[in-house]
C-alpha cells in the first residue's frame, strides 16, 4: 500500500534535523514550493541553523549547466538565510553575479569572506579605500572585463615569481599586453644553460577564475642544476598521492600485523540486483519457516571473490615489493607514515629531500626595487607561440610500468569517485580555503583523487624521484592565468596563449598557496636582482 492510498503526516514527528535533511535533497524550485505548504515546512526551510538551502545551492553551483531561473531571484526571498550568499559569491560564475543575480544587502564581513574565498590574497590591494562590497564588485568587474577583452589598463604590469635553485625567489614583472610566459621562460633557460631541455608545464592549482601554473624543466637526478624548491612546491613535504597510502599501509604491516580499517574502493561492476525479484536473505533466526527450519543468511565471506577489496578490519598481508625492499630506509613508506602520525610538526625532519630550509634563516627579505624588463626585449621566439600546448607537454612524463610483485600497485590509477576522497581528518595539510580551489583540487595541497591533480606523475608508486626518475632543474616560473570556468576544465590541455589574461602572482600568493615554502625560500628579491639562478 502506497502513501497516496493512505495519507499520513509523519514528517512532523521527525526530528527537525532529519526533516531538514529531506528538504535539502529537493531542488530549488521544489524547495520554494515546499516553503508554502505549512508553517512547519516554512519554519524549517527558513531556519538559518538547519539551512536546507545549502545543498541545493551547492548542487546548482557545482553543476556544469546554466543556472535555473529561480536561482537568480534567491536574494529577493526572505526565507533564504543570508549566509548562503557567501557560498554563492565565492562559487558562482562572474557574469551571473554581475548581470543576472539579485544580490541582497549583506554585512561587510560576508563580502570580505566571499572576496577571500574567491580571489588570491594579492588582489586585496584593490580594496584600497572603501568597503569590501565595493572591492568585491570592482574586482569582479575587472576580471570579467579582462576575460572578455584584451584590455590590460587595470594591470599594465604582470607580476610573477621565479623560484631559483639557490633557494631564493624573484618577484619579476612583465608588460601585461605582450606577456608570454613561454618566451620569458625560454630566456631563463638560456641563462641557466638548460635551453636543450623541454619546457614542462604543470597546473599547480585552479580556482574559479584563476589558475596557477608552474613552468620548469626536468633533468636527470645527478644534474648540478637541481632545484629542490621547485619540487617542494609541486610535491608538498610528506604528501603522497592518496592511492599511495595503500603502499604505505602495506609497509606498515611489516611493523604491525593488523591495521585498522581503510575504506575500500567502489566496485566498478554493474549492479544487477532487483530488490523485488530476489528473496531477502536476512530473515530472523527465530522466525520459523513453515517447515520449522530457522533460516540463516548464507556466509558472505566465502561468496566474495578474491578480486574484492578487503573489508574493514581484514588483516593485510605483507606485500614486500622490490621497491619497498630497496628503499626501506629512504624516508618513504613507514618512515613517512611515522612522520605523519607522531611528528609534532608538519615539516618532519625525516624527509630526505629537504630543501634549503633552515631555522636560522630569517623570513623573506625584500631586496632591491623592481626593475621593469618588458618581454619584448627578449629575442628568442617562443616555439609554441599561438598554439595550445599539446597534452604531452602539460601532462607529466610517461613513466614505464614498474615490475612489482606487490598487488597493491594494481589499484586504480584513473578517475576515482569524489565520494571516495579521504575525510579531511586524514589529510596531512588542511585543505586550502582562502582562496577555495575548484572541486577537482578540493584537497589541495593534498592529493585530490579525481584524476585531475597531475602534480604527481605516477600514483601508487614508491618512487623516490618524481617525474619518472628526473628532477626539476634550473629556475621554476610561477604565473597566474585568468580563466573562464566554462572554458578551462581541469585536466584539459593548458592554453598559455591568452593575450592579456595574466593576473599578478606575488610571493604573498605563493606563501598563501604553499605555506611550507615560506621557510624554504631563503630570500625574496623584488625584481630580477643579479639574475635568475
Amino acid at each position, binding site marked *: *500500500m502506497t*502513501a*497516496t492510498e493512505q*495519507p*499520513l503526516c*509523519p*514528517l512532523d514527528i*521527525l526530528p527537525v534535523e*532529519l526533516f531538514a*535533511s*529531506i*528538504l*535539502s*535533497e*529537493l*531542488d530549488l524550485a521544489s524547495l520554494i*514550493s*515546499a516553503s*508554502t*505548504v*505549512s*508553517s512547519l515546512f*516554512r519554519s524549517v526551510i527558513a531556519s538559518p541553523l538547519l539551512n536546507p538551502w545549502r*545543498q541545493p545551492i551547492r*548542487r546548482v553551483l*557545482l*553543476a556544469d549547466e546554466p543556472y535555473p531561473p*529561480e536561482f*537568480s*531571484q534567491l536574494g*529577493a*526571498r526572505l526565507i533564504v538565510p543570508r549566509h548562503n550568499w557567501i557560498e554563492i559569491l565565492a562559487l558562482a560564475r562572474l557574469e551571473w553575479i554581475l548581470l543576472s543575480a*539579485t544580490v541582497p544587502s549583506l554585512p561587510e564581513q560576508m563580502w570580505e569572506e566571499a572576496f577571500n574565498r574567491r580571489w588570491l590574497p594579492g588582489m586585496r590591494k584593490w580594496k584600497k579605500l572603501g568597503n569590501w562590497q565595493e572591492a568585491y564588485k570592482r574586482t569582479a568587474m575587472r576580471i570579467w572585463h579582462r576575460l572578455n577583452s584584451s584590455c590590460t589598463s587595470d594591470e599594465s604590469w604582470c607580476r610573477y615569481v621565479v623560484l631559483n635553485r639557490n633557494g631564493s625567489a624573484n618577484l619579476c614583472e612583465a608588460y601585461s599586453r605582450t606577456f608570454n610566459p613561454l618566451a620569458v621562460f625560454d630566456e631563463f633557460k638560456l641563462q641557466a644553460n638548460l635551453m636543450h631541455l623541454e619546457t614542462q608545464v604543470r597546473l599547480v592549482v585552479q580556482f574559479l577564475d584563476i589558475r596557477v601554473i608552474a613552468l620548469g624543466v626536468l633533468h636527470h637526478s645527478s644534474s648540478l642544476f637541481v632545484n629542490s624548491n621547485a619540487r617542494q612546491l609541486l610535491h608538498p613535504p610528506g604528501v603522497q598521492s592518496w592511492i599511495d597510502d595503500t603502499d604505505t599501509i602495506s609497509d606498515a604491516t611489516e611493523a*604491525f600485523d*593488523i*591495521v*585498522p580499517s581503510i575504506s*575500500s574502493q567502489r*566496485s566498478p561492476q554493474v*549492479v544487477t*540486483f532487483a*530488490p523485488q525479484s530476489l528473496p531477502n*536473505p*536476512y530473515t*530472523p*533466526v527465530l*522466525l520459523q519457516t513453515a517447515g520449522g527450519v530457522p533460516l*540463516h*543468511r548464507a556466509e*558472505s*565471506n566465502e561468496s*566474495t571473490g578474491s578480486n*574484492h*577489496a578487503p*573489508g574493514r*578490519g581484514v588483516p593485510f598481508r605483507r606485500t614486500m615489493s622490490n621497491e619497498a625492499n630497496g628503499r626501506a630506509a629512504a624516508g618513504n613508506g613507514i618512515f613517512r607514515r611515522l612522520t605523519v602520525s607522531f611528528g609534532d610538526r608538519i615539516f618532519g625532519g625525516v624527509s630526505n629531500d629537504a630543501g634549503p630550509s633552515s631555522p636560522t634563516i630569517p623570513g623573506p627579505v625584500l631586496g632591491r626595487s623592481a626593475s621593469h624588463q618588458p618581454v619584448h626585449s627578449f629575442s628568442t621566439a617562443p616555439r609554441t607561440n599561438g598554439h595550445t600546448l599539446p597534452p604531452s607537454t602539460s601532462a607529466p612524463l610517461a613513466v614505464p610500468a614498474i615490475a612489482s610483485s606487490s598487488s597493491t600497485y594494481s589499484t586504480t590509477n584513473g578517475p576515482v*569517485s*569524489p*565520494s*571516495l576522497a579521504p575525510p579531511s581528518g586524514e589529510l596531512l595539510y588542511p585543505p586550502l580555503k582562502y582562496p577555495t580551489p575548484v572541486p577537482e583540487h578540493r584537497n589541495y595541497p593534498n592529493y585530490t583523487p579525481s584524476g585531475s591533480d597531475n602534480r604527481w606523475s605516477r600514483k601508487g608508486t614508491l618512487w623516490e624521484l618524481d617525474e619518472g626518475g628526473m628532477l626539476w632543474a634550473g629556475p621554476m616560473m610561477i604565473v597566474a592565468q585568468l580563466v573562464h570556468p566554462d572554458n578551462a576544465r581541469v585536466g584539459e590541455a593548458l592554453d598559455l596563449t591568452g593575450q592579456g589574461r595574466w593576473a599578478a602572482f606575488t610571493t604573498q600568493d605563493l606563501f598563501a598557496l604553499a605555506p611550507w615554502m615560506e621557510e624554504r625560500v631563503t630570500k625574496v628579491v623584488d625584481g630580477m636582482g643579479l639574475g635568475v639562478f
Partner: protein
Amino acid sequence: MSITLISKEGAQFLVSKPVADRIGVVRDCAYGADFWLGYAVATDDSMGITLANVTSSILSKILVWCEHYKDMEPLVDGDSNMEFPEWDMAYIGHDMNQILFVLEAADYLHIPGLLLLACKGIADVLDGRNPRGICDLLGIVMDFSHRQEVDMDKENGYWRWFLHPT
C-alpha cells in the same frame, strides 16, 4: 566472526562482521573505542545486540543494504551532483511509509549512507509537486495565518514579476 542483532520483536539476525561494520551503533557496541585505535577485539560469536527501536521487517531491509555495501563505499556526500546508483533507487523504492521507517532506523543505527539515500527517496516523492499536492500526499492542513499568506503572496508575486516583468 558473526554478530547477532535482535530486533524490537526479539527476532535474531545473524550477520557477518563486514555487514555489521556498516551499522555505526553495532560497530561501536561491538568494538568500542578500541576499534578506532586499531586493535582487534575478540568478541564472542554468540554476542547479541538488541536494537529496540527497529522492527524485524525494517532491520532485514537495512541488512540487505549493508550486505550490498559491505565491500564498497556508499555515497555520503549530499553536496555533489553525483547520482545514486540504479540499485540504490530500486532498493529504496517509492513507498513513503517504508522509506520513513528506513530513515528513522538509519538515523538511530547511524548509517549515513542509508540516511542520505532515504532522504533522497522521500525528496523524489515530493519533487515536482505543488504545495497542494504535498498537502494531499502527507495529509497536511495548511495552517498559515492570513498575514503569512499575504506575505507569501507578496514574496511570490515579487518573484513572478522578476521572471515575467510584462
